[in-house]
């Protein structure tokens, strides 16, 4: 190592060190949580109130499309449970459908939530909720929903024809009171297809997707939204059911500081090299 100082590591070694720190910093809070208080944003409480103010006996549609993390960590359980509470208390009916870009995983997400996530006591499949599973075609499915809910698919996820399902009898898109979706990609398709309907739209999206959709939120096309991982953790606090998502919020603190430290470090190094 003549002439070369010990810290002149190869580019790969530097990157490996950066990644090692990411892994370590993520591990620390899992072993010893920080437990910092989480302030509730106004948008999250508005999301919660909008769901609770759904009138008696109306039908809503939920388009599942969140990223694969929610399949593993179940970060969406809180508002799925709220759906089933509304079914019991306000006799609200929910249509679950997925056209997510991650493929049939969307259908698997809904199925996993319905099997293990929610409390289904005295709710009947076909009367209170229906699961249409995953349908290919992404924006074409959103357009079919906006055009006519009956034409979206012939059978639900379990093979029973849609015409035989009790809650779908004579249901048209106008009868839908509210449309909600969770997305892992940009929100323009939902806005284009569901915006003109003039119905309230609920959105759950990754943090940077929400930042990108602020134009629609400010224009009122989106009624209420959850701001990614943090939004879901806040919603869990408002709803009172905690999952992994709340635990994750701890590690996010260290990762954010680490990100800022890296920004400053890389600029200092760049300044020195350029200087």
């Amino acid at each position, binding site marked *: 190592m003549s002439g070369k100082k010990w810290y002149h590591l190869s580019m790969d070694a*530097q*990157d490996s060190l*950066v*990644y090692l720190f*990411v892994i370590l910093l*993520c591990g620390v809070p899992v072993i010893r949580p*920080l437990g*910092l*208080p*989480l*302030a509730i944003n106004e948008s999250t409480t508005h999301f919660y109130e909008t769901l609770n103010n759904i009138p008696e006996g109306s039908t809503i549609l939920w388009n599942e499309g969140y990223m*694969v*993390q929610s*399949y*593993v960590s179940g970060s969406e359980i809180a508002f799925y449970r709220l759906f089933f509470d509304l079914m019991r208390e306000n006799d609200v009916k929910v249509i679950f459908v997925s056209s997510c870009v*991650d493929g049939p*995983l969307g259908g*698997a997400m809904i199925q996993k939530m319905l099997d293990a996530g929610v409390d289904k006591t005295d709710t009947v499949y076909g009367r209170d909720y229906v699961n249409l599973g995953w*349908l*290919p*075609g992404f924006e*074409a*499915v959103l*357009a*079919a929903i906006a*055009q*006519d809910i009956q*034409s*979206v698919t012939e059978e639900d996820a379990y093979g029973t024809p849609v015409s035989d399902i009790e809650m779908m009898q004579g249901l048209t898109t106008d009868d839908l009171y509210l449309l909600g979706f969770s997305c892992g990609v940009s929100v*323009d398709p939902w806005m284009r297809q569901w915006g003109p309907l003039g119905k309230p739209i609920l959105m759950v999206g990754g*943090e940077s997707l929400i*930042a*990108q*959709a*602020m*134009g*629609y939120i*400010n*224009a009122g096309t989106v009624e209420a939204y959850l*701001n990614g991982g*943090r939004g879901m953790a806040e919603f869990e606090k408002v709803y009172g059911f905690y999952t992994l998502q709340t635990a994750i*919020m701890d590690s*996010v*603190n*260290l*990762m*954010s*500081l*680490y*990100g*800022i430290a*890296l*920004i400053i*470090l*890389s*600029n200092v190094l*760049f300044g020195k090299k350029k200087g």
Partner: protein
Amino acid sequence: MSVLKQKEFAIILFVVPLLFILFNFYTGIAGPQATELINWGAYLWNFSMIIGTYSMFRKHLLTITERQKDWPYSVIMFVSFFVYFITGYIHTPTFQWIMDYVQTPIMMTIWVGAFTTFTMVFRGARTRNWLGVLLLLSTVLTVLRMAPIGEAIWGGFPIIGLWINDVPNVAVMRAITIGMGIGLLATMTREILGKETHYLGE
């Protein structure tokens, strides 16, 4: 027969469904037929996916038969495809097991989302000019707004962070959304006039 061979016939097959769906959207006439056509978009996309899969199989089969570079990995690809595809129809518990314990970690981890972001921040967060400094300043303030620790350090971070999100961000996202909307209409017009037919492979 030669008329069908012409490119124009394919353009007509592009333009007629397009105009019909727009006609239905603005007048509300012939709703069911337009819905059927919209569903056709999804079904035809399935067929094009099958073609894409076939052409990919042909490439990997070639790699195996001619023992090209990395041919064992193509074998792994075929084996995992057939095992997963067949158990999907024959033995669903195994399919579910593979989805839960093999496919999901791959889909979750191969993203290396955090790592790419941190490498980008480490490698690329170099400010070439004062606009870059502005961008990084806004990045840091947003991170401090979102992380609960930001609020613990100083109460002002969430307020400034929220302002940046609610004013400059809304203004720029509004302008870009308008630009994208106009761009979409321009492309639609060019395609209707048959000036743009890249979907035919020219």
